[in-house]
């Protein structure tokens, strides 16, 4: 049987591997919730590997045609617009704007860091006279004044699979799950 110190060292090596997909997807991982900070063995124990892009499992696929969205968006018109755009993206277009299906550079770092080209963005057109206040998952968002043909709302798709909704012109990003 291994000594406790040896067991702890082994765990410190294994935990980052087990939870690496959670880190890659961003947000609070289980490790962060358990320990209060990301698992970070001291430099004396081993050299941290270079970050790599973790392939997503099929179960993590959010980009698929669906009938509803989580978290709940309390605006039926917007929900339908998002579902239509997601279906269009999953079909590969054609897209109405030249700026669609182009790389999103994530200049502000509001989404998890990924290589350039991982994120692509799409214009979300919503029904005219849609409310400028929107509740998503119980959180109230104040949308910027609407202007222009393309409006201020976007979808950003990461890795061809993860769907983010920005109702506030790149100020907030909400990860969406499309429910079939």
């Amino acid at each position, binding site marked *: 049987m291994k000594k406790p110190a040896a067991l702890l060292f082994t765990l410190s090596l294994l935990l980052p591997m087990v939870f690496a997909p959670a880190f890659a997807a961003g947000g609070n991982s289980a490790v962060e919730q358990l320990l209060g900070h990301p698992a970070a063995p001291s430099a004396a124990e081993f050299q941290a590997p270079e970050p790599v892009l973790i392939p997503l499992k099929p179960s993590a696929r959010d980009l698929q045609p669906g009938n509803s969205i989580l978290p709940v968006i309390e605006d039926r018109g917007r929900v339908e617009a998002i579902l239509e755009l997601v279906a269009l993206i999953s079909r590969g277009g054609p897209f109405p704007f030249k700026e669609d299906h182009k790389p999103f550079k994530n*200049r502000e770092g509001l989404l998890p860091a990924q290589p350039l080209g991982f994120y692509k963005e799409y214009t979300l057109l919503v029904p005219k006279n849609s409310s400028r206040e929107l509740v998503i998952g119980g959180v109230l968002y104040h949308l*910027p004044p609407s202007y222009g043909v393309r409006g201020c709302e976007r979808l950003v798709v990461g890795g061809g699979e993860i769907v983010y909704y920005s109702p506030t012109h790149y100020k907030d990003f909400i990860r969406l799950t499309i429910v079939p």
Partner: protein
Amino acid sequence: MDIAELTAGNAPVKDMRGLSISPAAAAGLLGSAGWLVLRLDCSSIRDRGELFSACAAALGREYFAANWDGFVDALRSLPYDQEGRPGYALLLERYEALFSSDPAALPAFLESLSDARESLAGGHGVGLAALAF
């Protein structure tokens, strides 16, 4: 100086200081060629928020952008709302005062201009010029 000289080059911001053309003359040349000209007084643009507000005011809008991703998007979207323009120009007057409260904003501003120029040229075949006076 003609329109081609004003808009030539790949620098994010073309330095016009020391050249024998005033902001008003440059605005006249660009405007007569159909360009949309936004004249911005940089002495009132101490940080990026004031830049975004100044752009909105120059366009007669309530809102232009809230961060650099939005700024690039707003610039590259101009052809949809200002159709038929051969280009768009930011005339940055008193340029030396730009971002006096937030000097770190300058590199992001320059990169954003380059990105927006590339998108406008590739997507719409129109120009974006930023001229410093």
